[in-house]
C-alpha cells in the first residue's frame, strides 16, 4: 500500500493522534465505514464505538463517543466529544 491517509483524532481536551496511516475504520451514524487514502469527500456524525487505526500491520483502537468524521482530500479528521485509547 503505497499511498497513506492523513488521519487526525481530536477531542476538546487534546489531539490524540495525528499522522499518516493505512486505514481507519469508524462507527458512522448510519453504519460503520472504512477510510483509505483517496476517499471521496464525506462527512458524517459518529455513534459511540471504536475507531480502529490500521498502520503497518498494527492496529490501534480508540473508544469514541459523540462526534464527527470529516473526509477531505487532505485526509480524515475525527472530532470526538470524548475519546480514549482502548487498552
Amino acid at each position, binding site marked *: 500500500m503505497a499511498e497513506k491517509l492523513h488521519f*487526525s483524532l481530536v*477531542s*476538546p*481536551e487534546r*489531539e490524540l493522534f495525528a499522522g499518516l496511516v493505512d486505514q481507519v475504520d469508524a462507527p458512522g451514524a448510519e453504519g460503520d465505514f472504512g477510510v483509505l487514502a483517496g476517499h471521496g*469527500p464525506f462527512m458524517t456524525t459518529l455513534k459511540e464505538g471504536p475507531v480502529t487505526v490500521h498502520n503497518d500491520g498494527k492496529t490501534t483502537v480508540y473508544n469514541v463517543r459523540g462526534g464527527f468524521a470529516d473526509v*477531505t482530500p487532505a485526509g480524515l479528521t475525527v472530532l470526538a466529544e470524548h475519546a480514549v485509547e482502548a487498552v
Partner: protein
Amino acid sequence: MASLKEMRNRIGSVKATQKITKALQMVAAAKLRRSQDAAQNARPYAERMAAVIANLASGVSGEGAPKLLVGTGSDKRHLIVVATSDRGLAGGFNSSIVRAARERINRLRNEGKDVQILTVGRKARDQLRRMGNAAGAFEAGANPSLAVAEEVSLKVRELFETGQVDVVTLFFSRFKSVISQTPVGVQLIPAEVRAGSTPVDLKGASYEYEPDEETILETLLPRNITTQILSAMLENQAGFYASQMTAMDNATRNAGDMIASLTLQYNRSRQAQITKELIEIISGAEAL
C-alpha cells in the same frame, strides 16, 4: 518619627508579605505551564471545528439554514457572556476583560439595544453586578472543564431558543504569550464564519453527507458553542496564571525595595540615637 520598635515591626510585616507574594508567584508559574499546555491542546479541536463549520456553512443558506448559524434576522436583543477567573491577585487581568465588555454593553445600550449579561467567573459577576440585567452567573471553577462549558452553553442556547436574545457575544482574554493577553469579544450566535477560511478544495468531487447537511449542522452548531466557551475558559486560565505570575513577581520586587529602604531608615535612626546618647554622656561627664 516612628520609634525603632515600630520600624522593626513594619520591616517584619513587609518581609512576611514578600514571602506570600513569592510563594504565589511560584505556584502561578507551576500552574501556568500546565494550563498553557491545556489551552494549546484544545486548539486543534476548535480550529478543525471552525473549519468544518465554514465548510458546511458555504453549502447551506436560505430558509432551511439553522437559526444558530444565520441568526433570528434581528439584532435588537444582545447577550454578553463575560468570562473571567474566580480569583484575583492577577494585576489588571480581570479588569481588562470587564472593561472591554462594559464598553460594548454601554455602546449597545446607547444604540437602544436590549442587553443581558451572563457571567462566568466570580470576578465578572462582582464587577458587573451594577450593570444590571444579569441573565445568570456561573463560577469558572478551579480547572476549566467540559462540564462547566456545557452548562454555560446550555443556558446560552436556552435563552436563544426561547427567543430572549438575538445575538450572543463572548468576552474573554486571548492568551498570546506569557507577557501578552488581550481581551476579545467573539460572536457566538449567529455563528461567525471565520473570514478568510476558504472551503477545502475538493478537486472536483462533491461532498457526501450522512445523514444530511442540516442534521449535521444542527448537532454541530451547539457543540461549537460549547467548544468556544471551553476554549475561552482555557485561554483565560492560562492568561490568568501568566498575569498573576507577573503581578506577584512585581509585588515581590516592590516588597524587596521597600525592605531595603526601611532597613536603611531604621539603621540611620538607630545610629542617630546612639550618637545622641553618646553626646549626652560626654557632656554629662564634662559638667562634673
